């Protein structure tokens, strides 16, 4: 968890504010730079939450198109990456609501079996973890990914998902319990 938060802070510190300001003035090149800097993290979240590579790429596109159209509302209260992640979470959840019929868990397992490097070390163990995460209930999965993989704090997650901090904690504990059982 602490390591995940450190990763998040490292990304936030590296964020050049001037790029955001230039993008807000309509500079497409500045926005492309922001895309290049953040696409990996946005795509990782979309991929793990959606469980499908094609859908994750569509969602990643959606996130950046929405981000462009809403840049005027970004006031810098949070890091730009956090703001993007909020858009990503909402995009994934909105997409899921509009497409309930797909059997995502099956696809997720298929995706993970064929996914290229998702892990840093001890790939077999990490792959087991990826599979176990993919099998989590949606709410628990979202909170677990945001907290333990991406390093967000409970109040930030609560804000992103529109739920209470107590609920994010309960979902996180549930996710960890289910992962312990699965692994």
């Amino acid at each position, binding site marked *: 968890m602490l390591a995940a938060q450190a990763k998040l802070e490292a990304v936030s510190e590296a964020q050049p504010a001037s790029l955001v300001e230039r993008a*807000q003035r309509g500079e497409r090149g500045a926005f492309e730079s922001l895309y290049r800097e953040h696409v990996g993290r946005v795509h990782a979240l979309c991929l793990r939450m959606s469980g499908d590579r094609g859908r994750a790429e569509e969602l990643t596109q959606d996130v950046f198109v929405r981000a462009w159209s809403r840049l005027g509302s970004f006031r810098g209260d949070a890091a730009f990456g956090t703001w993007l992640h909020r858009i990503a979470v909402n995009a994934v959840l909105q997409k899921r609501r509009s497409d309930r019929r797909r059997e995502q868990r099956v696809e997720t397992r298929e995706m993970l079996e064929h996914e290229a490097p998702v892990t840093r070390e001890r790939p077999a163990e990490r792959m087991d973890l990826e599979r176990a995460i993919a099998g989590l209930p949606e709410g628990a999965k979202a909170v677990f990914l945001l907290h333990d993989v991406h390093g967000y704090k409970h109040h930030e997650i609560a804000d992103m998902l529109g739920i209470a901090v107590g609920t994010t904690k309960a979902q996180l504990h549930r996710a960890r319990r289910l992962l312990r059982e699965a692994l």
Partner: protein
Amino acid sequence: MMMHPGETRLNDYLDEGLDDDAEAALVEHLSECASCRAELAQLRGIVDAAAGLFDAIEPRHDLWPAIDARIDTEGIVDLDAWRARSGSRLWSHRYQLAAAATLLVLAASTGTLLLVRDSGRSAPVAATPAPESSPVRLVSVPGQADYLAAIRELDALLRSRASQMDPQTAEVVRENMAIIDQAIRETHAALAADPANGDLNRAVTTAYKTKIKLLRRAVELPVRT
């Protein structure tokens, strides 16, 4: 020895969420309870492993070109954001609509027409824009029925308000509707010749969405009282 702390307390300990007294009591318990130590070790293993996962996974290919193209057709329609970027708060409703409509239609129709004309290299039937009166076969695209239903509903609402609209605003709306309708017709004509063309399918969808957005903006305009 204190009672077993339970899952919540162990998680809070792991996340450094306990106060000093609670943490001290838990540490004391852990020193004497092998089962709680084992449970904590399992939890710590999960958390450490999760932190070791890549938090960034690049897409299989560069998504920017598609995003860049979509911004041209979709991304500039948020008038509030656009206005915030431009720094102007003094526009009247009429000029807001005119600007939005022009941006919408120029972006959507330019992209669509370029696409149609580009596809015309392999589909000669699409090379010449269809005249307004020529019959065009509507090739079904995903969600088409919903788009058409929304357009019908909004169009009816707009017509019911037309007599109360500012005449100049009504003219802006009419002109821009004509442009987007032309784009829709031409895209459908091209799609009829090349039904498997994914870009054309997306162009039709984009054109429908653009028309819906324009209609929504138009019906939300204040009317004369």
